[in-house]
């Protein structure tokens, strides 16, 4: 349990948010040309890092906007929060 600093609403309880998994997994531009292996990679395979990870989150019980987060999964500490489309800040 921790607090999250929503870039639109400010600091709120984590229970207001939904995690959207690993960030910066780009949706394939040419889906019809993808092989089964590439689909599996896009849909299912995850780094699942123990340590600093880039993630997508949604303020689902608030402004409902998506944003990105740099979080250490080994201790739940949040290093940075940044908006969709922005480059991840160097930690």
């Amino acid at each position: 349990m921790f607090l999250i600093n929503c870039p639109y609403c400010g600091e709120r309880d984590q229970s207001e948010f939904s995690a959207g998994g690993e960030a910066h997994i780009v949706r394939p531009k040419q889906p019809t040309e993808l092989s089964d292996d590439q689909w599996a990679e896009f849909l299912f395979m995850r780094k699942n890092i123990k340590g600093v990870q880039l993630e997508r989150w949604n303020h689902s019980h608030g402004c409902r906007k998506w944003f990105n987060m740099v979080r250490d999964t080994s201790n739940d500490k949040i290093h940075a929060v940044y908006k969709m489309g922005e480059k991840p800040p160097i930690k």
Partner: protein
Amino acid sequence: MKNKYSIFSLIKNALSYHENWQRAWRDPEPKKEYDVIIIGGGGHGLATAFYLAKKHYIKNIAVVEKGWIGGGNTGRNTTIIRSNYLWDASAGLYDHALKIWEGLSQELNYNVMFSQRGVMNLAHNLQDVRDLKRRTHANRLNDIDAVWLNTEEVKKFCPIINTSPNIRYPVLGGTLQRRAGTARHDAVAWGYARGADAMGVDIIQNCEVKGIKRNGDTVEGIETSKGFIKTKKIGVVAAGHSSVIANMVDIKLPLESKPLQALVSEPVKPIIDTVVMSNAVHAYVSQSDKGELVIGAGTDAYVSYTQRGSHDVVEGTLKAILELYPIFSRMKMLRQWGGIVDICPDASPIISKTHIKGLYFNCGWGTGGFKATPGSGDLFAHTIANDEPHKLNADFNINRFVSGDLVDEHGAAAVAH
């Protein structure tokens, strides 16, 4: 076995005030080379080593564990054992395990306190009723015992459940698997450790794996905090940390690791003599032999390796528990903890070879691995020894995420993941 446990050994040791029991397993330093190394000294890993030695006659085995054996999810679960899964592949896998459980204490000469007290799954809405009835039929077709109970029968089987039609999620019925039940989780790790050790398996604790050495697509050994150990076959049974090991060899797994919580109450006299699970409101409860209520909560919905979990998850579970069991309203909760579970997108495990020769993964058990411990060990041992899966775990390979042949137990398993 060097020191068989029996009524006579108990009497003999009682006479010397229980001061002369032999230690149950050795504490060896790692050898330079092993035929097989198992990474992870939980129940599944120790069972794998046990069956490799017992059924496949491979004796030169090490189990390396970064902490102490059974200190991870083996000692953190709610000890529920059942096999009432919907799909044929899952039914085969979990019932294989349940059949081994039924003779496990004798097989290990170690009392794992397996208690077939039954597991009841409650239905709270019409869709639940349809799904659970369907699962009952599917179970019977797979030769797994299952019965449907109406509300009155549920009340008769477990009188403390609130079956009033006026609660938010009324009990509309439930299923019962009588062969299901619970076991003592620590005893399972200790029993397998003792059994494996007696056959020559080295159990190396406080030994963290730092890297996997390979030559092209063949494994050569592992780098550990106790130095390099050579081997040709590595079985990874690292539960929540499977991805950490996989990242060492640049394999991506379809896993996300999340904290799953459980909690126990203060001990009270016997009040509930079965296991009751409720998917819709996510509450399940049983009572340990010490008298504590054992309550399982849900997972946090985000990736985390912290073994604690969020408060709101516990709160949600206890709300549901209190509505279903008003009698527990003044119980005090004694301890709460979390374990890191590795969840597959289809909520089914992976027991599989990889594209690297000699590297095998047994992971993705998610929130329900304990019940499968003996079967998982047996099938993983078979997979490692023969370099081919057993027919019962053939469907649980990594390639199913490429082919699309998923074993989708998400909605069908007894509790939502």
